[in-house]
């Protein structure tokens, strides 16, 4: 006969099999265990919290159903345990341990992994082995020492949920304070400082249902439950610890280190190792610098992160781990050597009356407390050196990721003065070998058989971890507030650009409108003189190949440069012209050129000139055309055979052309013609009419004699017009070009001088 349970709310007795008070409908179990603490090796009472089942996601219900099957097989034993727990009030309740998969149909897309790790069964060793600790992701918060009830567990008690601050809506302030915190729904209200960049609140599972039951769960104080984070978050080295014999501590909540497999010792301070005892200092409020509200969003976890990152992020928000930590760490009484923790005022802004950790401190934490695989990308040196003298564990004795398991405050300046409590037994093996104060494994606590279920927790390989580190770094850098260019600087840059635009447009427009043609034309450069000479040396009615290899963007310039030369050619020799292009727009540009600049000659297509059109293939096309024009371009754009027309009558190779004139705006296309067609021209002149941007690169070919002559840019065209004494487009543009260029030179000179001075001053200030 099991003892009846007295409802804490109404004081009436209820049958032990009831979950809720039959009078006031409040949960009995949780109330029953409100002040329960957990003891090492203690088997928690499995509570049936079936009413919470519907709010769980499908996958979680399935997981719990699996565990429930195992539970049903041992129903009798569990009932006995429950009775024992009720009688002794020793077994901590597992709020979700008895959840039954009763309902289906609800589909929650995203659930934090601390829920994912809950499978209702005891913590499995395999889960410990399969997962990697991410202690740096655990959220730590400070609470007033006096608010932490001391228990017989050495201070390992769960934080009373009554401390949760509620707003007007009845929701805890950490819920209303930011939607990002909802995934921590069952967590007691504490300073929710993110330790990991992943643990920042952007991970937003669909936990509306959880939020609904949170207020209900706020009344009972949850005992430390077997946590996903701890059961799944243990490193390999812990799982490799000597196997324990005896009864597994199913449901016993592991804390920072799996307390289900470690003996915490009977006394609060005495039995605790240094690093645990010092954790009260770690819970001490951080520095006085307030953290801006919502600063944790700086490390938002994007929703489109890969799954393994999501699970990482969610693991970091593992609420049970948080409870565990808070449960057995926060109430540690400060030792005499321990400086009194600063007042509570340094909790986050979303906790009323608490001040957040400063950004600098958190940043320092990230820099110093990342695990090995993250520390490579972490800032090389933290801003503030921890006060190593009082550090509970020498940083040099632990791997960095183990250090990362310490709470946030342990690395903050205020937390460095941790109490030095007597060391516990020294660890003999494993990564913690040589460390004192390590919780030993006690037979009967740890699991004794290989588990059958698999963890839902993060199972990250080294590559994934390195990827995570990289992504973490990227996220951190992306979300770090960067010094924005001041609006005045942006504005001044914009004004400068507008000013240049207005000056140039006004100058060009006014000069063009005036029709001024008074400025002297440039003198004839040597290569242009050679081009004119080559043209003058051609015979009459000679076949000439003109290649249109420029783009429409510079058609105005190239046309102006070539107009006078071609005009002079047609005027003097009346040649038969063949037009060709290796640019797709070239055929149209060729027609445009003939119509716009040579219309005075009344040259007729098909009779005086022929437009072969587009020659594809780049260098290969030019090579083929140079060797066999008739094969490569059998037809014109109109589809007729060009080679029966006058311009192409006697053409078999490119050497049959009296000259090749290439109109180009790119040195590259000029080089193709020089390289592919030049050697096959048998000394026939090759002339170049180029944009000013291509001229300097073609100059070596002029000097080597591969190019007979060159007209480069508007200046070249203007000089040809001057030599030919015939007006052309270059003359029309030249005044606007020359005068505007003069203003441009002045602007660049003055602006550069000003920026030189400013730049030197800025560097001097920067060095100072």
């Amino acid at each position: 006969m099991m003892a009846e349970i007295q409802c804490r709310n109404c004081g009436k007795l209820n049958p032990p099999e009831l979950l809720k008070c039959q009078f006031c409908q409040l949960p009995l179990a949780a109330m029953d265990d409100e002040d329960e603490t957990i003891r090492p090796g203690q088997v928690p009472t499995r509570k049936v919290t079936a009413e919470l089942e519907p709010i769980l996601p499908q996958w979680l219900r399935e997981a719990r159903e699996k565990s429930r099957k195992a539970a049903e097989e041992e129903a009798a034993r569990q009932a006995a345990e429950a009775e024992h727990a009720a009688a002794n009030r020793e077994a901590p309740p597992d709020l979700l341990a008895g959840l039954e998969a009763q309902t289906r149909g609800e589909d929650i897309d995203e659930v934090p992994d601390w829920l994912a790790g809950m499978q209702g069964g005891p913590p499995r060793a395999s889960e410990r082995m399969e997962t990697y600790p991410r202690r740096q992701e655990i959220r730590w918060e400070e609470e007033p020492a006096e608010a932490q009830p001391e228990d017989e567990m050495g201070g390992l008690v769960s934080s009373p949920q009554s401390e949760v601050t509620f707003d007007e809506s009845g929701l805890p302030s950490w819920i209303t304070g930011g939607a990002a915190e909802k995934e921590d729904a069952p967590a007691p209200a504490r300073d929710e400082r993110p330790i990991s960049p992943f643990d920042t609140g952007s991970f937003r599972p669909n936990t509306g249902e959880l939020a609904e039951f949170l207020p209900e769960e706020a009344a009972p104080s949850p005992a430390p439950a077997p946590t996903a984070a701890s059961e799944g978050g243990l490193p390999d080295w812990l799982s490799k610890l000597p196997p324990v014999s005896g009864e597994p501590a199913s449901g016993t909540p592991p804390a920072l280190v799996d307390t289900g497999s470690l003996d915490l010792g009977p006394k609060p301070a005495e039995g605790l190792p240094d690093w645990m005892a010092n954790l009260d200092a770690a819970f001490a409020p951080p520095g006085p610098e307030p953290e801006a509200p919502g600063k944790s969003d700086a490390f938002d976890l994007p929703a489109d992160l890969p799954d393994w990152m999501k699970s990482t992020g969610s693991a970091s928000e593992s609420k049970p781990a948080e409870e565990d930590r808070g449960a057995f760490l926060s109430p540690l009484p400060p030792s005499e050597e321990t400086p009194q923790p600063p007042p509570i005022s340094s909790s986050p802004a979303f906790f009323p009356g608490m001040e957040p950790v400063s950004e600098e401190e958190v940043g320092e934490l990230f820099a110093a407390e990342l695990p090995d695989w993250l520390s490579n990308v972490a800032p090389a040196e933290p801003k503030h050196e921890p006060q190593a003298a009082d550090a509970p564990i020498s940083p040099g004795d632990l791997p960095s990721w183990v250090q990362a398991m310490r709470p946030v405050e342990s690395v903050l300046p205020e937390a460095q003065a941790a109490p030095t409590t007597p060391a516990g037994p020294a660890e003999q093996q494993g990564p913690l070998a040589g460390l004192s104060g390590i919780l030993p494994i006690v037979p009967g606590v740890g699991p004794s058989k290989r588990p059958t279920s698999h963890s839902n927790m993060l199972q990250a390989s080294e590559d994934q971890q390195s990827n995570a580190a990289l992504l973490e770094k990227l996220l951190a850098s992306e979300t770090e507030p960067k010094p924005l260019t001041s609006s005045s600087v942006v504005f001044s840059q914009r004004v400068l650009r507008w000013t240049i635009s207005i000056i140039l447009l006004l100058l060009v427009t006014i000069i063009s409108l005036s029709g001024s043609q008074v400025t002297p034309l440039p003198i004839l450069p040597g290569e242009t003189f050679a081009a004119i000479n080559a043209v003058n040396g051609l015979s009459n009615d000679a076949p000439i190949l003109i290649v249109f290899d420029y783009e429409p963007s510079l058609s105005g310039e190239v046309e102006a440069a070539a107009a006078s030369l071609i005009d002079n050619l047609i005027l003097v020799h009346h040649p038969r012209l063949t037009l060709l292009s290796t640019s797709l727009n070239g055929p149209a540009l060729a027609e445009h050129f003939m119509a716009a600049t040579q219309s005075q000659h009344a040259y007729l297509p098909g009779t005086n000139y022929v437009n072969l059109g587009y020659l594809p293939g780049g260098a290969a096309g030019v090579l083929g055309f140079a060797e066999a024009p008739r094969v490569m371009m059998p037809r014109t754009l109109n589809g007729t055979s060009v080679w029966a027309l006058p311009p192409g009558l006697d053409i078999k190779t490119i050497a049959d052309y009296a000259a090749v004139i290439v109109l180009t705006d790119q040195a590259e296309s000029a080089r193709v013609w020089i390289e592919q067609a030049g050697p096959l021209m048998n000394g026939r002149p090759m002339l170049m009419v180029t944009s000013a941007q291509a001229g300097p690169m073609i100059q070596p070919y002029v000097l080597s004699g591969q190019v007979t002559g060159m007209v480069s840019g508007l200046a070249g065209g203007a000089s040809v017009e001057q030599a030919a004494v015939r007006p052309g487009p270059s003359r029309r543009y030249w005044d606007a070009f020359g005068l505007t260029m003069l203003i441009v030179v002045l602007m660049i000179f003055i602006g550069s001088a000003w920026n030189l001075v400013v730049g030197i001053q800025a560097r001097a200030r920067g060095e100072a």
Partner: protein
Amino acid sequence: MNRPFAAAIAIAIGLIVLLGYFLPIPVLSVLRLELVQWAILLAGIAALVGVFNLISVHWQKIRRRERGNFYSAVLLLTMFVTLAMGLLLGPTHSLMQSLVEAVIIPVEASLMALLAVTLVYASIRLFRRRVDLMTVVFLLTLLLVLFLLTPIPSGGLSGLADLARSIINVPASGGARGILLGVALGALVTGLRVLLGMDRPYGGK
């Protein structure tokens, strides 16, 4: 099977074309010409493939209602109208010529014209970003060459301008020749690596 075959094609065809430069064998010349003609045809088809890819990309943007799909719709509409006109009328038709003169030339030339502003802006701010010997030489050369393009009255100043032009042209031509030789060497090495099968940019691993 496909990829070694591709490598074999690239090497064989490339060697035949390359030998044609140096060995004036008639049979080789005929074969080379045929191969080059096929290459020209294939290059044209490759350009078509590029246009089809452009259509595919923008069609997907429209179908998925991605951001900027309005512009993609405008692009496809303009393309199909132009294509229909070009296929029906031919690219030499006066309407097609007008289209080029009304759309392609103005837009491209205007884009180039924008550079006239942005390059001045960039030049002015160059010293803000870096001050070293190379920057100083670069900027002084730029200013000198631009100044030589301005209307310089005849006389003594004109003679100085000629002298300055010569002084600039000699080292500039030498530098340009160095760059051209570097480009040619790079093309030579890259081409030989392809012809020897060491590089297979066509996916013939």
